[in-house]
C-alpha cells in the first residue's frame, strides 16, 4: 500500500504525548494552576471550572447531595466535655472570625490555590463546651449520615483548623459542604469533613474515619503522608 503512514504517526504521537503527560503532567498541571490562578479565581461564570485547572471536584460518598438551610443548621459539641453545646449558624458567626487564604490539596492530586476561608477556630468552639482533662481527640460526623473523620486534640486545637462558613467570600455552598464544613489546612482534603454536624470529644482513640478505614492515612499531613510529596499548606 502506497502513501504516507499518517495514521500510525498520529497514534504513536498521541501515545508519546500521553506518556510524557503521565511522567511530567504533575509538574505541568501545577505550573498551569499557578499561572492561571489569577484568571480562574476571578471567573464569575463558572465556565472555566469546566477545565481541569485549579478546580474543586465535588466528592460525595452518599447517594445524593445533602442540604440543610441556614436556619435549620445546628452544630453539636458533645462527648467528653463539661457541658454539651449546640451552635446555630448565627452563634458561629457571632464568634471572633478567622480569615485565611490557603490552598486546598486533595490526596488524588488536584490542588486549588489561594482559597479564601472564613470561620471560627475549632479550638474556640471546643472551649465553649470545655474539653475535660485527658481527652484523646475528636470524632467528627457529617449530616450526610456516612462520612466521619477524627483529629487528635493537638491537631484539633491548631490555629489553621477552622469550622468554615464562608469560601471565597460567599457562604459555603451545599456542594462544598455548606452551610458549615471543617477546613484542616495542613492536611489532605479528606480530613476537611463537609456538612459538619457533630463534634464528639473522645476520651480514648476514636474509630478511624471514612477514608481511613479504606486505606488512607489518619495523620494526613500534606506532603508527609499517603506516600505523597506535595508542598505543605
Amino acid at each position: 500500500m502506497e502513501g504516507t503512514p499518517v495514521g500510525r504517526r498520529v497514534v504513536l504521537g498521541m501515545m508519546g504525548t500521553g506518556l510524557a503527560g503521565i511522567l511530567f503532567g504533575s509538574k505541568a498541571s501545577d505550573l498551569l494552576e499557578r499561572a492561571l490562578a489569577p484568571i480562574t479565581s476571578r471567573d464569575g461564570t463558572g465556565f472555566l471550572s469546566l477545565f481541569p485547572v485549579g478546580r474543586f471536584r465535588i466528592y460525595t460518598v452518599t447517594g445524593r447531595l445533602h442540604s440543610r438551610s441556614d436556619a435549620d443548621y445546628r452544630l453539636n459539641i458533645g462527648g467528653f466535655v463539661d457541658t454539651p453545646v449546640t451552635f446555630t449558624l448565627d452563634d458561629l458567626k457571632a464568634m471572633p472570625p478567622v480569615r485565611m487564604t490557603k490552598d486546598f490539596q486533595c490526596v488524588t492530586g488536584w490542588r486549588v490555590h489561594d482559597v479564601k476561608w472564613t470561620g471560627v477556630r475549632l479550638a474556640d468552639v471546643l472551649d465553649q463546651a470545655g474539653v475535660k482533662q485527658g481527652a484523646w481527640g475528636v470524632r467528627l460526623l457529617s449530616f450526610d449520615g456516612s462520612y466521619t473523620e477524627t483529629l487528635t486534640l493537638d491537631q484539633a486545637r491548631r490555629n489553621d483548623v477552622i469550622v468554615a462558613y464562608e469560601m471565597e467570600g460567599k457562604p459555603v455552598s451545599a456542594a462544598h459542604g455548606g452551610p458549615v464544613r471543617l477546613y484542616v489546612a495542613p492536611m489532605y482534603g479528606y480530613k476537611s469533613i463537609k456538612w459538619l454536624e457533630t463534634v464528639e470529644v473522645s476520651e480514648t482513640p476514636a474509630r478511624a474515619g471514612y477514608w481511613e478505614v479504606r486505606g488512607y492515612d489518619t495523620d494526613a499531613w500534606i506532603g508527609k503522608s499517603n506516600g505523597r510529596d506535595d508542598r505543605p499548606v
Partner: protein
Amino acid sequence: MTTARSEVPARARLLRFDGAEQVLHWVNASLFGVLMATAAVLYIGPLSALVGRRELVRYAHVVSGLALPFPLLAARLGPWRRAFVADVRALARFDDDDRRWLRSLGRAKGVRMGKFHPGQKLNAAFTLGAIVVMLATGSIMHWFRFFPVEWRTGATFVHDWLAITIAVVIAGHIKMALSDADARRGMSQGWVPTIWARRHRPKWYEEMTGKSAQPGAGGPPTPSG
C-alpha cells in the same frame, strides 16, 4: 444533498460499510456515549452533586472503558474482518491528494478524495490513539497503588485534557454527519448513492465502478494525480 431511499434504486447504490463495520461503529458509539455521560457526572460539580452515587458511576465508567478494545479486536480478528481490514488500510495512509488537502488546511482546490476524506482518516487515527491513551491513563488512575504517586496526578492531567479534546472531536464528527444525510446512510444502512460517491469521493467511485468521475465522462477512468 439528500436523497430519499425510495428514489435510490439498488443499481444506483454503492456498498460503503458492511454489517460488521456498522455494528462496530454503533457499539463503539454507545460505549463512548456511556463513558462521556458518566465522565460528565464524575467531573462536572453540579452534575456530581445532582447524581451522587460516586462509586456506582465510577464503576460504570471503568467497566465501559475497559470494554473498549474488545469490539475492535472482534472486528479485526473475526471471520467478518475483510471489509474492516481493508478500510483500516485505507484510513491509515495519506496519498498525494490527502497531503495536499492537509498542507493547505483544507483550502486546496481540485483535491480528489478516495474512499475516505483526510479528515476522516485523522479522526480514525485520533480515536484509536485516544482509546490507547485513555485506557493507559485510566488504568493508572484506577490501579493507582501500583504506580508512583506523580504518575497518578500526571495520568489524571492527561485523562482530563484528552477527554475534553475527545468531546470536541466527537461533537465535530456528529456535526459533519448531521450535515450530510447521504454520507450518514453509509453508516446506518451500509450504502451511499453512487452519485454521492462520484461527487464527494471520486477516486473511490472510480475504483468501485471502473468509470471516470469527471463531469460528462462515461468511459474508463482517466489517470488522476
